[in-house]
């Protein structure tokens, strides 16, 4: 019997079409059709400048947007050959790990909901709301954040972030403990999830599968450990590895990874180098903008060269200098702080040259590939530049593309009812699969 589990189906996390050939309840053969959410990311990336691609990258893996942002920005920074300050690395790691937790919460929650554990879904979405409020505090948006920039991040961590983060992580831990109590030794859950959707590690490697999926088969490949980037080599965390490669192992790997991500965030918050420092070296008080301009006019550059300036507090928020230590020093890449844009002509010129159409960041001609550990696996960005202000080719190596291509291997031989938990544990995100 041919059964079409069509694009619009409740148990499908995204829109794909699975045409199953059934013999009673047993799946004999399946054919997977994707592409229903193809939005032309790679083509759009060629029409906008380098910073303009960042909103498009948000919408790739939309449950962990900050990881995509970070991956893309680090790829362009590799192409440019610049490096960002340490504080910026720490900030990027913190927000990436928050994104990873939200991704795993969504995946495990939705997977549990499809097996009937609706309360677990509600608890996990509750935890996700706390984390999204945290992300909103830092970036300004809950989901599509566009936080990272080429050469840094948009703005520093706000005051009070440490306490809010601590509280949000505490709530997340409570939710994880509750969900663990509800699911891990739940007879129904264990019976439905273990033994289904098995794949061996050789097959997984042959298909190019990475991430928690591969780790559940026993291979300990994590880009953060094997090809470390940002400050991951200084942070202590474990990489959970499963044994059997079935759905239950994937669930356990994801739950443990969330715990490890919380551990990373706590360490990073402890180790992060200090933030902006506002006072004038000689007088000890913040230097107002008019004074800085006067000092500049009389040529006293040495006194002002690394001072932070305080502008008129009527520019809401501009009184706090947000930008030291979070941007690369390279002026041809990073937008100046708003105090400089509106305060002196050099800042205005720098802003103009980077933002106006036709001007903008000009990386050298070349090609780079930079992988980061996305929530589903290795997320790689391959960028080819021709020296102009927009990229020549931007290619995303989508982690769940490889997993979806292995879906026949996962499902053939199982029952029809096993399609749901297997597909749930694949964590297919349409924006990433189809771009």
């Amino acid at each position, binding site marked *: 019997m041919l059964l079409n589990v069509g694009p619009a189906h409740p148990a499908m996390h995204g829109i794909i079409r699975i045409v199953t050939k059934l013999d009673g309840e047993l799946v004999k053969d399946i054919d997977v059709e994707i592409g229903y959410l193809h939005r032309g990311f*790679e083509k759009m990336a060629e029409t906008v400048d380098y910073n303009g691609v960042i909103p498009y990258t948000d919408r790739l893996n939309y449950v962990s947007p900050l990881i995509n942002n970070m991956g893309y920005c680090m790829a362009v920074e590799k192409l440019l050959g610049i490096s960002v300050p340490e504080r910026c690395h720490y900030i990027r790691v913190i927000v990436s790990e928050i994104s990873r937790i939200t991704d795993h919460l969504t995946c495990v929650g939705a997977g549990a909901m499809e097996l009937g554990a609706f309360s677990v879904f509600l608890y996990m979405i509750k935890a996700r709301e706390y984390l999204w409020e945290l992300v909103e505090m830092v970036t300004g948006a809950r989901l599509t954040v566009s936080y990272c920039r080429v050469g840094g991040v948009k703005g520093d961590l706000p005051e009070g972030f440490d306490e809010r983060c601590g509280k949000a992580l505490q709530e997340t831990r409570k939710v994880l403990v509750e969900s663990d109590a509800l699911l891990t030794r739940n007879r129904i859950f264990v019976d439905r999830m273990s033994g289904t959707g098995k794949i061996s590690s050789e097959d997984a490697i042959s298909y190019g599968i990475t991430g928690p999926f591969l780790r559940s088969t026993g291979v300990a490949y994590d880009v953060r450990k094997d090809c470390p980037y940002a400050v991951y080599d200084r942070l202590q965390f474990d990489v959970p590895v499963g044994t059997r490669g079935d759905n239950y192992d994937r669930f356990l790997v994801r739950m443990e990874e969330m715990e490890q991500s919380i551990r990373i965030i706590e360490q990073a918050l402890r180790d992060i180098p200090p933030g902006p420092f506002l006072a004038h070296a000689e007088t000890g008080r913040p230097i107002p903008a008019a004074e800085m301009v006067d000092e500049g006019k009389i040529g006293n550059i040495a006194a002002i060269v690394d001072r932070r300036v305080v502008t008129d507090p009527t520019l809401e928020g501009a009184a706090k200098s947000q930008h030291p230590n979070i941007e690369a020093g390279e002026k041809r890449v990073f937008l100046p702080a708003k105090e400089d844009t509106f305060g002196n002509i050099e800042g205005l010129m720098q802003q103009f040259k980077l933002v106006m159409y036709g001007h903008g960041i000009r990386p050298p001609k070349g*090609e780079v590939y930079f992988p980061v550990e996305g929530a589903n696996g290795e997320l790689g960005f391959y960028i080819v530049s021709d020296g102009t202000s927009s990229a020549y080719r931007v290619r995303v190596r989508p982690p769940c593309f490889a997993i*979806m291509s292995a879906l026949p291997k996962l499902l053939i031989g199982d029952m029809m009812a096993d399609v749901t938990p297997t597909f749930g544990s694949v964590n297919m995100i349409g924006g990433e699969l189809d771009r």
Partner: protein
Amino acid sequence: MNAASLIQAVKDRFPDGVKASHSYRGDATVIVGREFLLEVARTLKEDPAFQMSFLMDLTAVDFSTFGAKRSPAFFSNSGVAVSPSPEFPDEDPWPGPPVSHPSAGAALGAPASHPSAGAALGAPGPAHFVVVYHFYSLPLKHRLRLEVPVEEDDAEVDSLSSLWAGADWLEREVWDMFGIRFRGHQNLKRILMYEGFAGHPLRKDYPVNKRQPLIGPVN
């Protein structure tokens, strides 16, 4: 192995297969001729010196308009020089897009006015398409990028789906987006666009907002 020794090892193994190589920004890159692709890939996978367990990515780049686009300069006569040249110093600059070296019997029947006629007659020129492969080795933890230049009128390469199962869908996507065929692929049909779509969207001559709606009224 680091980038330089990796490239050297590949060159030693295939002295006439490897046309060029570089390691821009530390990424070991090797450009091979089309005929050698399957052999090189098999060696990369099975040889204990390389052990490339993962085919991480398989994609293509259309180099036909490389360097041709001039940045719009609104103020070109106002004294603010908008030069399109890169402004960042390069210790080891990129050698440029791969050059195609067609074999003697390739591209028969290309008319003389065709832009790749120069290439068809045996003189190397920048290739129209380049198929790019990224490999990663799990035990040895090194990466390699393989590039295969391909011309437009003879856009065909060997399929790697016999070596890595993941190459199946990746090659279908390259066929869909660029129109490059893969010899030996069992099921080469469109994957991201719908079946009736005409053209290959990621080619440079496909305008970004040319629409082919399946249903109307006006889209």
